[in-house]
């Protein structure tokens, strides 16, 4: 049996050696969800990164601790990656809305007839930064929502990339659960600021 300096590992009672395992099956690690956070009350939700999860409610559990345990947070949204409609990326300083093709007549016609629903719009202002929520539009399809977003938010510049998400695809944290985040700022043991050791060094040098 494998003896380890780590008592936790010794307790696993692992064999000294074992044959290499087979490669993992596809989706062993689950599909991905994209996570957005609100850092402060009344500020825009900002993209923070993906989590792998089997379903949205689990993605929420995972996203909360992966992305909000170390920084203040007042709310969180998660969405399946596949539910995000992504435009092409433009250059910094430009707006991708400028290059947006006009919708064909039949799609626009459908817009009038069909029932609209809400879409959430996110902008990337600069390559390497994070997508930020700019607002909602009403539309009949993601393509139409993009046109509506151009009308509503197209004056904002630059816009390097746009994400369009049907609002019902976003799982949003419950207003009643805001207290789940209230103690995060109190957890000083994981903040650099909690470790002040200069006095001790100075005292040591004086005594030395």
């Amino acid at each position, binding site marked *: 049996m*494998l003896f*380890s*300096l*780590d*008592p*936790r*590992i010794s307790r*696993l009672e*692992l064999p000294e*050696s*074992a044959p*290499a*395992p087979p*490669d*993992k*099956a*596809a*989706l*062993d*690690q*689950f*599909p*991905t969800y*994209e996570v957005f956070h609100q850092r402060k009350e009344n500020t825009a939700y900002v993209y*923070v*990164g*993906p*989590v792998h999860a*089997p*379903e949205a409610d689990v993605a929420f559990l995972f996203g909360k601790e*992966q992305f909000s345990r*170390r*920084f203040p947070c007042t709310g969180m949204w998660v969405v*399946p*990656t*596949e539910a995000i409609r*992504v435009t*092409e*990326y433009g*250059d*910094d300083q430009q707006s991708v809305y400028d290059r947006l093709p006009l919708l064909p007549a039949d799609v626009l016609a459908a817009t009038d007839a069909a029932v609209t629903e809400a879409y959430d719009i996110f902008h990337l202002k600069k*390559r*390497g*930064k*994070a*997508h930020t929520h700019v607002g909602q539009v009403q539309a009949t399809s993601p393509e139409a929502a993009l046109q509506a977003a151009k009308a509503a938010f197209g004056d904002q510049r630059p816009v390097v990339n746009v*994400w369009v998400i049907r609002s019902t695809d976003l799982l949003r944290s419950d207003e009643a659960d805001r207290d789940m985040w209230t103690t995060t700022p109190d*957890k000083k*043991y*994981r*903040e*650099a*600021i909690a*470790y002040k*050791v200069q006095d*001790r*060094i100075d*005292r*040591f*040098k004086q005594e030395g």
Partner: protein
Amino acid sequence: MYGSASTHDIPTQATTGLENEDPILLAEFEARIARGEKIEPTDWMPQLYRKQLTRMIEQHAHSEIIGSLPEGTWITRAPGFRRKMAQMAKVQDEVGHAQLLYSAAETLGKTREQMLSDLINGKSKYSNVFNYPTPTWADSNVISWLIDAGAIVNQMANAKGSYGPYCRALDRICAEEAFHLKYGHDAVVHMATGTPIQRKMMQEALNRWWPAIMTFFGPSDKMSTHTEILMRWKVKMATNDACRQQFLDMYVPKILEIGLTLPDANLRKNEDGVWEFSEPDWEDFKRVINGDGPCNAERIAVRRAAEENGAWVRRAMQQPKAQYVRPLA
């Protein structure tokens, strides 16, 4: 924490493959980087860029998850509430960083399944320092402070690189690492300025770890066409030697001021401000990174066990209609 795994195995002799790339797209790509703009996942990129970045970010991710083990060795034994909670938070962060980095690597096209398979099958490398043991609490403190310090030197440089998802991950990682560095320093200072038992523990741990620390940034770079291209593309941001010099500049004085000594009689700063030191044993380094170190087998065995013991959980949570989509950013 640990960003230095990959730099030593850039194939200096291999061809760049650039002759097969579309010259117009390549020129646009290079112009974008030269302008200081980041590359995002759906942009056109040369094969060499994709390959090197994937390897580098993947190895960085492996280094985090394997790197959680030497400090994890002391997670149940950290002395006192303050250390106990911080040690847990730090080990947790390493796992969190692995998650961020695997996600960044995935945007380049390799799945997390494949990366984890390659890790547990011994096909991928991770930072070699984690193949050494932490026989005492003080060894864990040395890692928390000095290995993390080395990693931060590396990561701060890489955070200025050209690939958007890697930069986003590194920005978050660097913010979290500020705590690691301070926590590690605090713990080492307490030991080094503490009781005789503590001082002895700390000095011995430092003596054990110093040779490994000196190899952390990898051997001197052999400048080749290949290296030059990777630096032009802002994949590789600083030479191994530059990182090592910066680390020594920042941390040797901090080590000495608390009464610790370093086990290298040749270590000194010369008149030109350049640190001189005994050349690390690169043969030993090669031997260890190729599998023959004191902890290689255990590190991989533990990862395999974690994957295997959790397999039923993942199987049970699997949704039949699930489809893989690369993370977006």
